[in-house]
């Protein structure tokens, strides 16, 4: 392998991860607007069982096999949530917490058992806990990028309807929009993004890539279209810089770095975001009190 090959591979992986970051931000903004911010968390923790299960069943550990397992497990986790909601009086928050804890425990039990069951090491599966982009091949990165582009296309197609459902559910259902179909598409997209983000960010933190960018973008704009794009850009920047830092600091896993970059972008937005940021609010507060001073002045003199 020559340097040319290596840098080209790194570049392709960076492009793939950038696409995943952008798509996560885009899909996440729908999810946060619909107030389902943590819908992906149960799916994310469940993916681990799928990854380990796919390896145990097929004996293969190429990315496609493992991610197919992850998608199946993510859907199963969401399905269990729906079942618990239908069949028991356990509330949603407790049901989500149970799915998160129990499915992650099952995944940990499967992965930890691999060495004792005759597999060498844990077959590299523990990289799905916290993300490890160094192991990605060019082929994998292209695959992730294509799925990410597909997810962005779906969001573009349903953006208007999803916005309507998010802001006025009763109007949407009264005018005949199938609210549950749109919700199902949004949740399905989140499940897909969680799985696609798995190699780069890992099961424990991949929710953050869906939640933090839109919440940060919310501080910059009040328009849904702008929100989606800004959120995507924040996701992209976080993903790429996290991957770049972990490439230079190989003992750090990728996921925490990606998430920490996103948190820093959020913190910056919180301070200087023009819509709801701390500075903008102070300014608005000053302007308001100025205006109030002008209006109140004559009355004050009269009294």
């Amino acid at each position, binding site marked *: 392998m020559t340097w040319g090959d290596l840098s080209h591979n790194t570049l392709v992986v960076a492009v793939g991860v950038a696409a995943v970051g952008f798509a996560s931000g885009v899909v996440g903004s729908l999810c946060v607007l619909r107030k389902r911010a943590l819908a992906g968390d149960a799916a994310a923790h469940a993916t681990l069982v799928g990854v380990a299960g796919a390896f145990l069943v097929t004996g293969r550990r190429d990315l496609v096999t493992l991610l197919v397992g992850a998608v199946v497990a993510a859907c199963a986790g969401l399905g269990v949530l729906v079942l618990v909601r239908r069949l028991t009086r356990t*509330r949603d928050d*407790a049901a989500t917490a149970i799915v998160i804890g129990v*499915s992650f*425990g099952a995944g940990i039990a499967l992965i930890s058992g691999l060495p004792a069951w005759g597999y060498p090491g844990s077959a590299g599966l523990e990289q799905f806990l916290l993300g490890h982009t160094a192991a990605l091949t060019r082929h994998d990165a292209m695959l992730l990028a294509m799925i990410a582009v597909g997810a962005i296309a779906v969001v573009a197609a349903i953006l208007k309807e999803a916005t309507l459902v998010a802001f006025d559910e009763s109007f949407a259902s009264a005018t005949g929009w199938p609210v549950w179909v749109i919700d199902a598409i949004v949740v399905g997209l989140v499940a897909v993004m969680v799985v696609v983000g798995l190699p780069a960010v890992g099961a424990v933190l991949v929710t*953050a890539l869906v939640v933090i960018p839109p*919440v940060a973008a919310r501080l910059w704009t009040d328009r849904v279209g702008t929100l989606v794009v800004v959120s995507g850009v924040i996701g992209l920047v976080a993903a790429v810089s996290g991957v770049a830092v972990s490439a230079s600091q190989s003992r750090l896993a990728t996921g925490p770095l990606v998430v920490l970059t996103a948190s820093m972008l959020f913190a910056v937005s919180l301070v200087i975001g023009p819509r709801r940021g701390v500075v903008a609010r102070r300014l608005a507060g000053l302007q308001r009190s100025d205006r109030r001073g002008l209006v109140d002045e004559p009355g004050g003199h009269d009294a």
Partner: protein
Amino acid sequence: MMSIVLAETASDPGFSAIHAWAMATAAVIAASCGLVGTLLVVRRMSLLGDAIGHAVLPGIVVAVLAGGRAGGPLVFLGAVVAALVTVGLTRVVRAAGGLAEDAAAGVVFTSLFALGMVLVGFAPPGTHIDAACVLHGELAFLPFDTVPVAGVDVPRAFLVGAIVLLGLVVSVLTTWKLQVFTAFDPAGARVAGVPVGLITMGLLAATAVATVASFDAAGAVLVVAMLVAPAAAAELLTRRLHWMALLAMLLGVAGGCLGYLAAWRCNTSAAGMIAVVLGVEYAVAAVIAPGDGVIMRLVGRARLSWRVVCEDILAALWRAEEAVAAPGGRHVSAGRLPAAWWLATSGRIERVDGGWRLSSRGRREAENVVRSHRLWEAWLGRHADVPIDHLHPPAEWVEHHLGSAMRERLQADMDARTADPHGREIPPEA
């Protein structure tokens, strides 16, 4: 390979003691988590338990880097501070972004956890904290770190867990009435002068303490299973808070012991298997719960539809008698024959020349069903402005659910009217 491990451990004289200590440790931390989790679940704060489980990590790592040792006071302090910071930051983010609480919490706890993970990466070797331990704990290694207590080498983790359990039980017992009041009527509690904010802060601190006690055994992510799964299972099995707390602790202890044994048999992560066993416990509770478990719901639904079929047969026979006052038997459709046979064996209807006829007992019951039906039609027609051709379907459904007391009230509301809107007589109460 497994048999070699088994043979080696079985020949080790410390084998049973080590496993007993590990199981005892799992039991005490699971009991603490079950107790705290009960309050989290009834106060709909389960996801906050998850958030705190993640967010205590930077507090623990900073405390360890500052020279604290696992289970030491510095680590507990760091974790409690991190938990309170999480909640404070969540409020700030929520107010600033104008977003739902889960989005704000999602930002804060993932950020803090990521910060903790990066800090772990910088921990010098020999500080006994690494990524694997953070993610799933190392229950099997805990019994080797012991302190002598009255001449016995007690594992440090068990000692810390037992002290935490004792402290939590005492604080929950002494504040029990306030906890119940705050959980079920926070507004009323506030008006009555209960320091609701303080109680909530205490619960958050207790969650952080239970998390730290479990941290070395279960890691940051699996603790949420120990907090929520036993409490949610207990909630399905009982409707009294004190029984729920007790059951949650017992289920936690059972899950801790069984999970440890299962992990030992399968040669895998103890914390992972404990979470799985707790999930199985919840699933079993959801299926067998008295009252509204899956089985009882199915049984209840089946009994209701059986009763509806039986009452429909009785009412149909009664209406047929009303229309043509001939003593002959009536036909019952094939799908309803099992119900008809049961009605016959219980003496409500009898077989007459190829058909069925009401017995005097069946006639009384049928009269009440028809009476319910027609009273409801009459009442709807009078008070609800429902067109006359829309009266039948609701009455057809309600007739199975009106008791004699309800019929009496409807009758009293009807000025002794004796006919329904279709002009048919409302039979008297039998």
